[in-house]
């Protein structure tokens, strides 16, 4: 506090520069953050990936998996079996196969109590088998998982992956070098199945209010150290895409990612990251930079959503490093990837994981990838966020200084009858009249409402006046409208103090803190939020704001922001449709997104929706109060004229 109360504050040279040019400085900081981020895609600003954990010994042994006849035969059986079960998992067939190959096989039943609407129940069954390691006492385990998709599923099939898995089980079972139990997991209902299984394995519920009844499982194999998820769409593949983004933006250890790429490279398989392989263009600097920036932005966009882009994403919370190998069916190319090659890759990965003495703890857990063989370390990318957050802090500091200086000017000047009007204006900035009660009650009110919004959503949908989607939109929209109109009404009906400068400072600080905290968990989300909110927040002034600023801020309402994002995405995907159709689709997609994000909060414990409603929205409202109660520009101009006249006298 010494710094803030020191009477000499604001006298230093740097402070003076900051005071005089803070607008320019803040904008400059913000722009430099963007520039820094864009530069990260360039090879000068990122580094080549490397193995930190030597125990992995990637690809040191020659792969032995050669018998892909089993996988091919099983594939034929499996296709017949899958056709017989259009909507469900061919439970008995898979169990029989697992048993035949010598696995300890177990079933896991789970129930979803749908958290919204009429609380419907959905059930599912996972099947898993454990290959007991010959050289271990079930103290550690690794997982090979696979989402089972029945023929009626809208997602591309994963049957070839299951065939490959069975081929691998047959092969793995005959090896004597396993030191860790290998769990083969076939899940139902996509991510829900994996989540339920993981909760059952760890005997703990992650979501809210018991949305998932995870049931009980019997067989376990000690702490799981890593998991590989297979999504293989065809027997002959064109390429393998590696997916890493997890729930709430968590990522697997970079060593695991490197391992997969090393094994793919060893077997000569085309492997990609966000559909781009690691081929470099040594002569085309701009082209290479653009391609890397593209990958980088794709990764940031996926990570920011906080939604896992594969079943691997749910493992991360439990300290299990996991990623997905997605194999795309090849078109008409002559060269394609066979089960044989892919089997060797998976074998290599598992043998490396088997070598691992310690848990994954080296290398990076926080990183961005501009290509499959380049990475940006946290030390580099955090700068871009740090700089833009610095702009917010600078702005709030300058605003605070201005109060101090104005306060001093006020007391030093002799009182003059003629300057009463001026004094009134200045007195508004007096630290002694900071309007603590007003500011405090606004902060409390906005945050209290924000915190209860999630609960409100659930309650309202369960009433069942509308469909779940509509009722959610109704709740959020009506909440938003009421909270928008409320300050206007207050301003009209009551004569309350117009000094909200403290609210502005606190809102700036809160936004900056929020961005930093989110960046600790999910850099991408924080960075995207900062590019959207930092500049407008800097432009908001506690005293004078034009109509345009208010409109701009209104357009950045979190709910509208979601709509813009969906609209943009819809427009981009369906370019050939008419504007009206796109708009309609965007509205319905927004509703779906809202429902999904609320459901994710309840089922998986994902937090973007909670953060948005309990902190971001209240923060946005605080700025809105500042905007509403600040003087209009004309009024300010008059006041400044009076001040100038006074000084001339």
């Amino acid at each position, binding site marked *: 506090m010494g710094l803030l109360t020191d009477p000499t504050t604001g006298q230093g040279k740097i402070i003076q520069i900051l005071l005089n040019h803070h607008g320019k400085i803040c904008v400059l900081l913000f722009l430099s953050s963007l520039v820094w981020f864009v530069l990260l895609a360039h090879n000068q600003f990122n580094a080549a990936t490397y193995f930190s954990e030597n125990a992995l010994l990637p690809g040191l042994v020659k792969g032995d998996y050669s018998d892909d006849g089993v996988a091919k035969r099983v594939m034929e059986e499996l296709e017949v079996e899958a056709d017989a079960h259009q909507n469900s998992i061919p439970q008995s067939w898979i169990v029989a196969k697992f*048993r*035949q190959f*010598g696995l*300890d096989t177990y079933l896991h039943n789970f129930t979803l109590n749908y958290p919204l609407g009429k609380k419907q129940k959905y059930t599912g069954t996972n099947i898993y088998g454990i290959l*007991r390691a*010959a*050289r*271990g*006492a*079930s*103290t*550690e385990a690794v997982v090979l998982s696979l989402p089972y998709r029945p023929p009626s599923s809208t997602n591309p099939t994963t049957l070839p992956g299951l065939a490959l898995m069975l081929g691998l089980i047959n092969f793995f*079972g*005959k*090896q*004597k070098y396993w030191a860790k139990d290998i769990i083969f997991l076939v899940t139902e209902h996509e991510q829900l199945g994996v989540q339920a299984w993981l909760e059952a394995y*760890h*005997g*703990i519920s992650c979501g809210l209010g018991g949305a998932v009844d995870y049931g009980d499982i*019997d*067989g*376990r194999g*000690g*702490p799981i150290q890593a998991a590989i998820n297979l999504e293989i769409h065809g027997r002959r593949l064109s390429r393998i895409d590696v997916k890493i983004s997890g729930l709430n933006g968590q990522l697997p250890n970079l060593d695991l990612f490197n391992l997969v790429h090393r094994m793919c490279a060893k077997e000569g398989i085309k492997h990609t990251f966000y559909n781009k392989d690691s081929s470099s263009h040594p002569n085309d600097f701009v082209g290479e930079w653009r391609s890397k920036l593209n990958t980088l932005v794709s990764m940031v966009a996926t990570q920011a959503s906080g939604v896992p882009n594969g079943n691997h994403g749910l493992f991360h*919370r*439990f*300290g299990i490093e996991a990623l997905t190998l997605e194999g795309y069916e090849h078109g008409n190319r002559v060269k394609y990837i066979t089960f044989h090659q892919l089997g060797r890759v998976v074998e290599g990965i598992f043998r490396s994981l088997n070598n691992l*003495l*310690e*848990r994954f*703890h*080296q290398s990076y857990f926080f990183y961005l990838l501009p290509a499959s063989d380049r990475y940006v370390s946290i030390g580099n990318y955090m700068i871009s966020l740090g700089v833009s957050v610095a702009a917010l802090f600078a702005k709030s500091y300058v605003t605070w200084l201005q109060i101090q200086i104005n306060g001093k000017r006020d007391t030093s000047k002799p009182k003059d009858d003629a300057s009463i009007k001026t004094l009134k204006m200045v007195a508004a900035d007096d630290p002694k009249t900071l309007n603590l009660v007003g500011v405090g009650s606004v902060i409390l009110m906005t945050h209290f409402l924000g915190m209860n919004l999630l609960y409100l959503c659930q309650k309202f949908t369960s009433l069942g006046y509308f469909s779940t989607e509509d009722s959610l939109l109704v709740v959020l929209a009506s909440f938003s409208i009421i909270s928008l109109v409320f300050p206007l009404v207050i301003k009209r009906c009551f004569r309350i103090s117009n000094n909200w400068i403290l609210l502005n400072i606190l809102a700036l600080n809160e936004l900056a803190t929020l961005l930093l905290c989110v960046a600790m968990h999910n850099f991408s989300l924080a960075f995207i939020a900062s590019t959207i909110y930092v500049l407008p927040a800097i432009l908001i002034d506690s005293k004078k704001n034009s109509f345009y600023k208010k409109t701009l801020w209104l357009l950045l309402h979190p709910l509208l922001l979601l709509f813009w994002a969906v609209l943009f995405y819809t427009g981009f995907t369906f370019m050939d449709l008419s504007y009206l159709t796109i708009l309609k689709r965007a509205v319905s997609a927004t509703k779906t997104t809202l429902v999904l994000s609320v459901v994710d909060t309840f089922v998986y414990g994902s937090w973007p929706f909670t953060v948005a409603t309990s902190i971001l929205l209240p923060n946005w409202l605080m700025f809105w109060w500042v905007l509403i109660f600040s003087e209009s520009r004309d009024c300010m101009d008059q006041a400044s004229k009076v001040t100038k006249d006074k000084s001339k006298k």
Partner: protein
Amino acid sequence: MFILFTILFQLIFSVNTFSNLYSDSFHEELLIKRLSSGHVYSYFQFTTLWNTTLDKSTFDHTHLWPRSLGEILGYHNVQELHVSLTQGLWRYQNWGYPVVEAPPGAELWVWFKPDTENVEKEWKLLAGALSGLLCASLNFIETSNSMTPELSFRPVGVADISNPVNSSFLRYATLPREIVCTENLTPLKKLLPCDSKKGLSTLLNAGYVHNTNYHSLGLHFRQTCSGKYCVNPVIELRQTVSLVYDLSIVEPINQDWSIRKLFGVGVGSGCPLASSSRIYVDISSNETGPVFHLTPNPDSVALSMRGGYQSTFAVYDISSAEKLFNINANYRKLSSVPLSYPPPLYVNRYIAGYGQERGRIVTKIHNKHRTPLKIIYLENIPWFMPIYYHTLKVTANNRNINPIQKRYHPGKERVRPYFLEVVLEIPARTSIEVHFEFDYIFLKWQEYPPDANHGFYVGSAVITCMLPVGRNYTGLPPEASLISDSWNASQQGYLVQLRTESLILTLPTPDFSMPYNVICLACTVVALAFGPLHNITTKRLQLVKLDEEPKGVFPFPKE
């Protein structure tokens, strides 16, 4: 006359001594059983029996008895000793019960004689001596990881009736991290009278023994008795090796097994010093399970009716075998996958929860029997895993079960482990969960082992139960010393002491690469500083006159 008398006396005395010395016998046995999961279980038992009392001078002269072990036993006042060194986990659910139970890693439990003055000291010294004898890290056993179970462990041998069992003379410790390898097998074989030169021990080839899914070495010493009224004292040493082979690793093509496939060599003749050398093959499953045919034909077939379950054994007497021979089991039909049915009682244990703040240990005990079973649950929690006793709960299908008895001694950091013993009754055909919470704690930085991020081992819990039926049971009755004694030995109850999985606990671990980085940096700085300093201090700077004219493309113009 006096001299003659003395000589005569000495002669008589020494004959007496020698007659005592030679009143010992050695038996070697091998039991081969195909488990219901398709694995092949082979259990070697080398038994040495000696009709003598146990005191300090007993082992001054030994005949068949391993003297190195005997001296240790006598010196440390041991009444009963059980050591096991195990790699892998016995899977009760699929394999039934073994003849001797052992947890993963090393386990040692010892009853000291009631006249032992300083049990703690003897315990520490005994562990150290055994560590040398067996090449195992038993020297890591100390008071901070050993305890005194009050209910679970009783003396297996004959105890003095006049002295009630006082568990303060019992010590129990496990070392779950211990890795068992050929360096432990060799010293064990050296304790045998024939070493590994003759007899069944020739089958124990390290290359094959360590290829198994489970292998366990054991030393079991106790005092027992012989005679109809149990009047003649006998000391007994059983050296055991249990192996479980996975046939899909040994023989991927078909499920046939043979002695040569399992052990790499055929069987020769028995150890000449052995009173009996026999191989038993359990052929009970021939009637219900997959049918197999044994070649050569067994010398005899033995029927055993025990606990309501009948078993059939093919017996091979190899003491008179002249040359190497192989026992081969050929399966007739292979199309079916044997269905394994679980034994009456089995157990699973795991750590629940994630993150490094608070966890929960859950032990699931399954009673598949039609009557309630009473069990004693012994938990062995190391000091670095502080548990909350008040969170101890026993539930069956979300209903609370009240334990019959609870014994608890809280642990103390770096001094003693947490000791918990619970007596329970499990309702018929029910699975119960015993669970309690614990904290993850920080250790001092020197207490982290190498490869700190591997985690910390928590030893197995022990579940003791008297089973009312003999299904899946292969253990020996308390009065028996040999496997063949267990046939037709129906008892009141069949004692099992199940060992659960050992656990790996991931404590919060500091980043140990930092000191390494600091060392690297410091070394670099020193190296960089050393070069110039060395140059400056050892070399003299002198002005040298250039004799030659500057050459090059652009020579400097002369003035």
